[in-house]
C-alpha cells in the first residue's frame, strides 16, 4: 500500500561516539523529555572497551525514556571477537528489553527475547528480509549503502516495519584495528581512550586537504552527513516506515523536530534543510539512495 509520510516513525540510533558519560546520560534525558522520536536504541555498539562506562547508567536512561513513552531497545555490538565481548552480548538478553541485533553472534544467543535487526546485518534483498521475518524479527533497519530501488523491492511486501538511515555520518566500516589509537601512535590495548577527544569522530582528509572520512575508534564513517530530508516522499513511496537519526553533538532534538514537521506536512523540505544546515556545519549527502557515490548530493538535496 502507498504510505503517507505522516505514518513514518522516527528512531534514534545508538550513540556511536565516545562521549563523556554525563553528557551521554543527559543527552538521553533530554531526548526523553523533548524529542519527537518513537523508538530509541541504547548501548555501546562500536568498542567493547567503552561499554563499562555506560552500562551503570543504562537503567536510569531506559526508565526515563520509557516514562516518556518511547519504545526502548538495546543495540548489540557490531563486531564481536573475544570471550568477554561474547559474554557481554549474551548478557544483553537477560535485561528484559528487546534487542536490536547487529551481528549473527547475537542472533544465535537471542533465546526467546524479542528482537529487531540492525543496519549491520546484511539484508540486501527480499529473500533475506523474508528469512528474518520468519525468525520473528519485529523491525528491520537496512544497510546504509542500499539504493532506493533495492529499498523498495525489500520493503514493498514486508510484514514488519522497514527502517533506513536518515540523518548523520554514515557508518562505513568496522575493523579489529583502532585507527584513533593508530593516529596517536598507540595500540588498541593501550589506547588511553583517545577517541573521547572527538565528539563526532576524527577528521580524515586527503593529501589535497579534501574532507574524506571520519574515524571513531575501530569504526570508519562518512565525512558528509547523510541526510534524506529532501527524499521523504520517495521513501514513503518505497514503503519505508521508519527513519533512523544517528546522534551527533549537534542539537538532535531540533533535528528530530524538523524531520517530524516535514513528515507531517507542516514544514517544507527546503526550509527544513536550511535549518538542518544551521545545526550542522557539515556537507550533506544522500548519494547512496540514488545508487551513486555515497558522498554526493542527489535529487533535491542541497549539498551543504
Amino acid at each position, binding site marked *: 500500500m502507498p504510505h503517507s509520510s505522516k505514518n513514518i516513525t522516527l528512531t534514534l540510533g545508538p550513540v556511536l561516539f565516545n562521549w563523556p558519560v554525563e553528557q551521554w546520560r543527559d543527552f538521553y534525558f533530554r531526548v526523553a523529555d523533548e524529542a519527537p522520536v518513537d523508538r530509541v536504541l541504547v548501548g555501546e555498539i562500536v568498542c567493547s572497551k567503552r561499554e563499562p562506562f555506560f552500562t551503570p547508567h543504562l537503567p536510569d536512561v531506559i526508565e526515563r525514556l520509557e516514562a516518556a513513552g518511547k519504545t526502548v531497545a538495546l543495540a548489540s555490538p*557490531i*563486531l*564481536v*571477537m*573475544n570471550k568477554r565481548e*561474547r559474554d557481554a*552480548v549474551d548478557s544483553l538478553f537477560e535485561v528484559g528489553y528487546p534487542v536490536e541485533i547487529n*551481528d*549473527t*553472534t547475537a*542472533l*544465535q*544467543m537471542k533465546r526467546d527475547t524479542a528482537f529487531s535487526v540492525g543496519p549491520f546485518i*546484511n539484508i*540486501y*534483498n*527480499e*529473500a*533475506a528480509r*523474508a*528469512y528474518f521475518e520468519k525468525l520473528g524479527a519485529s523491525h528491520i533497519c537496512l*544497510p546504509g*549503502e*542500499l539504493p532506493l*530501488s*533495492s*529499498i*523498495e*523491492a*525489500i520493503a514493498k511486501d514486508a510484514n514488519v516495519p522497514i527502517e533506513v538511515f536518515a540523518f548523520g555520518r*554514515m557508518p*562505513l*566500516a*568496522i*575493523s*579489529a*584495528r583502532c*585507527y584513533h589509537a*593508530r*593516529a596517536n601512535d598507540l*595500540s*588498541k590495548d593501550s589506547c588511553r581512550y583517545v577517541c573521547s577527544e572527538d565528539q563526532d569522530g*576524527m*577528521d*580524515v*582528509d*586527503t*593529501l*589535497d*586537504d*579534501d574532507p*574524506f*572520512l571520519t574515524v571513531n575508534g575501530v569504526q*570508519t564513517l562518512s565525512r558528509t552527513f547523510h541526510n534524506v530530508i529532501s527524499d521523504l516522499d520517495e521513501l514513503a513511496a518505497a514503503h519505508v516506515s521508519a527513519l533512523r537519526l544517528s546522534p551527533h553533538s549537534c542539537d538532535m532534538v531540533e533535528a528530530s523536530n524538523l524531520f517530524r514537521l516535514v513528515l507531517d506536512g507542516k514544514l517544507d523540505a527546503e526550509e527544513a534543510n536550511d535549518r538542518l544546515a544551521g545545526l550542522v556545519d557539515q556537507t550533506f549527502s544522500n*548519494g*547512496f539512495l540514488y545508487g*551513486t*557515490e*555515497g*558522498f554526493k548530493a542527489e535529487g533535491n538535496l542541497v549539498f551543504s
Partner: protein
Amino acid sequence: MTTETLELVCPAGTPAALHAAVDAGADTVYCGLLDETNARNFPGLNFSAAELEDAAAYAHKRGTKILLALNTYMRAGAPKAWYQAVDIAAHVGVDALIMADIGLLEHAAIHAPHIRRHLSVQAAASTPEAVRWYKDRFDVRRVVLPRVLTVPEIANLITEIDVETEVFGFGGLCVMTEGRCSLSSYATGKSPNMNGVCSPASHVRYENCGSRLVSKLGDFTINSFDEGEKAGYPTLCKGRFEANGKISYLFEDPTSLNVVPLLPDLIKSGVTALKLEGRQRGRAYTEKVVSAFREAIDTAAAGLMPTTPDLAVFMEGGKDTTGAYRKSWQ
C-alpha cells in the same frame, strides 16, 4: 577437529590460471562466473558456464576440488543471476559453493542441498556462536574466517565448533571486516557487497602534479608519490591521508598478507584450509604463489619451519604482514 596439514585453496580468475593452479599443486581451486554474482567482478576475468564445466573436468581428473564463489549479496528484486548460478554449479558438479547472503544460502540449501555450502568471509562470522548459527540454519560445512582474529583466537574458536575452518594465507588484505565495508561505494558508488568490486579500476586515475604522481579513486586523492617512488594501486584503505595533524597510512600500509611464518601455528590450531587471494592476478602469480605455498605447507606438515619464499614482486608495496593474526596489529 584437527588436521596435520592444510588444504591449499587457490584462486583462478581464468581457465589458464586454473590450469596453472592445479598443475602447481593446489588441493582446491575457487572461481567465479562472468557476472556480479562474485566478488571479483572485473572485466576480462571469470568463467562462462561452459568454461566452468571444462575447468571442473580438468580439476577433477587430477584430484583437485573446485569451488564456486557466489559471494556477493543478491540484488533486491533481481535474484535470478544468483539462482541461475546455483543451477550451473549443480550441473557442472562443483564441490562447494562459497556464499554469504542469507537469502542465497537458504535457496541453495533447499534447491541444491547436495552441494556443500561454505560460508564466505563476506559473512564475517567471527565467533563460535556466529558460526553455529550458520551451521544450524544452513548446514554450512566450512567457514572462511574474517581477517580480524589472532591465531590463538582462531585456535579457541576451533575448539568450540564442529565446522571446518579456512583462513586467508596470502594476498590482498582487507583491513576492515569483510562484508561490512562500504568505503568503496562511498567513494565510487560501487561496492564489494553489491557489485563485487572494491576501489574499481574504472574509477582509478593517475595524474602528474609537478614532479609527483598522484593516484586518485573517483574524486579523492588516495596517494602521492615522489619521483622514483613506486606508485601503487589506490586501494582506498591503503592510502595516505591526514588525520590528527599528520600524514600517514592511517588504515594500513600498502602491503600483502603472508602467513608463511605462522603455518606451523595454524596447523597446530586445527585450521582445515589455507586460502590464497588473487583471482584478479595473472597466471604468473598463480604459478609462483601456489608452488611456494605447496612447498611451505608440505614443509610445515613435516614438522619443519618453512623458509619464507621470495614473493615480494607479488606483494602490494613489495611488503608483507601477518595482519590481524598477531595481536600487535590491532
